[in-house]
């Protein structure tokens, strides 16, 4: 009898640990999540006090809207570009900043390099607008170096705007990857590098054949988290370009916002949100699968 009771409490232990977290998440987010899905099935929510049920009409509208598809395509470019940028810059810097140099200097460089992370998006966006402005510093330097003859309108030229946005997003996002990768680097056994050195490996060989494979789980996890976040990154894009010029940098999150708060079409916005949810869920399943494999 007591044994059974004990068994039950033992079985219950993990649930007790999860309880606070799940309660908070559940209490605060399950209703909003449910609401968003519900909104997407009605017409004119919020604006109308008594919205009408339209079933999947919003989805049909959405899927036939070229604006949605182009925003989707932009999102894809932006997400992949940003994540790739974060990874390349973040990993590169992590390697550099992990080098065997004076510890004080190392602390200094690490702290400096993490700076882009600690400013709020409004400031980051405005600052980059200043820098990328036709009369701004970037153009000035490029002209001074003779790389361009005319000032370029980085954020106003549809051919350049996405690149500029990727630049800003990369700048803003690499520190997270850098810090994660840096902590990962500490776990790579030194012997592996030594073995590789004896096998005749140079810097790049060591990176490709030792560092990367060793940190694959870290990279995979971090990349997927980054992917999910970048996929719905809103403030930075909205404040930097507002989706423009035209809709050249419109991504799904800015489209959602535009639908919701510019056009007050909350139902349509919810529909886009649900579509983002579905796509992110695919990422997440990928992530969980990867994690299961790691265990």
């Amino acid at each position, binding site marked *: 009898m007591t044994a059974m009771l004990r068994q039950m409490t033992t079985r219950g232990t993990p649930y007790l640990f999860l309880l606070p977290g799940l309660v908070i998440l559940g209490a605060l987010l399950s209703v909003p999540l449910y609401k968003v899905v519900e909104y997407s099935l009605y017409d004119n929510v919020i604006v109308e006090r008594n919205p009408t049920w339209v079933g999947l009409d919003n989805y049909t509208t959405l899927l036939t809207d070229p604006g949605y598809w182009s925003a989707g395509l932009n999102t894809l470019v932006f997400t992949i570009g940003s994540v790739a940028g974060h990874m390349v810059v973040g990993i590169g810097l992590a390697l550099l900043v992990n080098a065997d140099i004076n510890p004080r200097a190392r602390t200094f460089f690490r702290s400096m390099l993490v700076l882009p992370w600690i400013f709020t998006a409004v400031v980051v966006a405005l600052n980059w607008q200043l820098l990328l402005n036709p009369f701004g510093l970037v153009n000035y330097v490029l002209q001074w170096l003779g790389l361009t003859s005319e000032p370029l309108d980085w954020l106003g030229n549809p051919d350049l705007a996405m690149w500029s946005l990727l630049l800003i997003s990369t700048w803003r996002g690499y520190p997270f990857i850098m810090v994660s990768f840096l902590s990962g680097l500490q776990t790579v056994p030194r012997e592996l590098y*030594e*073995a590789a050195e004896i096998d005749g*490996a140079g810097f790049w060989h060591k990176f490709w054949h030792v560092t990367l494979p060793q940190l694959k789980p870290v990279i995979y996890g971090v990349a997927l988290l980054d992917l999910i976040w970048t996929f719905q990154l809103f403030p930075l894009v909205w404040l930097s370009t507002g989706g423009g010029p035209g809709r050249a940098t419109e991504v799904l999150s800015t489209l959602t916002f535009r639908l919701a708060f510019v056009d007050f079409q909350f139902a349509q916005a919810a529909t886009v949100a649900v579509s983002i949810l579905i796509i992110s869920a695919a990422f997440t399943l990928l992530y969980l699968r990867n994690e299961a494999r790691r265990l």
Partner: protein
Amino acid sequence: MSRIEIRNLVKMYGAQQALHGIDISIEPGEFCVLVGPSGCGKSTTLRMVAGLETISGGEIAIGDRVVNGLRPKERGIAMVFQNYALYPSKTVYNNMAFSLQLSKMPKPEIDRRVREVAEILELTQLLDRKPGALSGGQRQRVAMGRAIVRDPEVFLFDEPLSNLDAKLRGQMRAEIKRLHQRLENTIIYVTHDQVEAMTLADRIVIMRDGRIEQQGTPDEIFHDPDTVFVAGFMGSPPMNLVDCMVTPTGLKLGDSEIACATPERIRPGERVICGIRPDDIRPASDQPGGAPITLPVTLIEQLGTEKLVHFSAGSHDMIGKTGGRTELAEGRPQELSFDMTHAYFFDPESGKRIR
């Protein structure tokens, strides 16, 4: 197959000196084992030969080249690490092929060599596995295979067997011996385990605190130690080393007297350290020849085929041996016979052998 010359090798870690001028000269094809207590500088020496540590002073030559400034890959060496350091993401095949791939060897040639070595080490079945799916002994073999495929002039081993269990350790020891007989490369091998040192080495180098204490063949080291340190270090259970007073007829050990010949250089009345291996102390019934003394037995350890007899002589705890089937009781005095023909004598101050 290259000669290795290590001349006056010095290593500084900051202000701390880890090696104080090491000189070793290893013949082509010789199997040289470095032993010594933890922290004595064995790994440091080996890693300097490999090129993994910078050289603070002195010179290392492999073959005819001084390799001081060379990178590891230019030294013609291969190394097996204590914890194997296999690339976890590569298959056994690729672990072994990696260095060949880096050296841009043609694919078919790589394949031929990897398979040949795998055959020797009985790894052929495992070529597609990753290290994570191997047992300890198999990993160890892969680590060796990785070194062997390169066909280096010199092999370096840093405690390659210390992570294996006793049984496997014995097997792999034999395997390494066989490999050496077959490949005939020059080998430097670091170990803690004196059985490995004794069975594998052509030459043993005993180190202590960054200096060489003695070097020579296993027989020399074991049967003709130069210092009390070497005498105590080699042999398990270790040699009994007891502080004795020299008497005209032999030695005074605690209250008992043992009759034996002492080297001429020592006079009666002097103190001396006397070393006697446990094998040379046996119950009088086992070994009729020696000098019998009756001493109290404190503990008997049954090892199976033999028993260790712990007894005390004055303030010294000493160990003798007997066969596994000899009946002997703890806690009672026992007549023990000391075979003093194989006793060693050392100067208590300098620790040097008195011959």
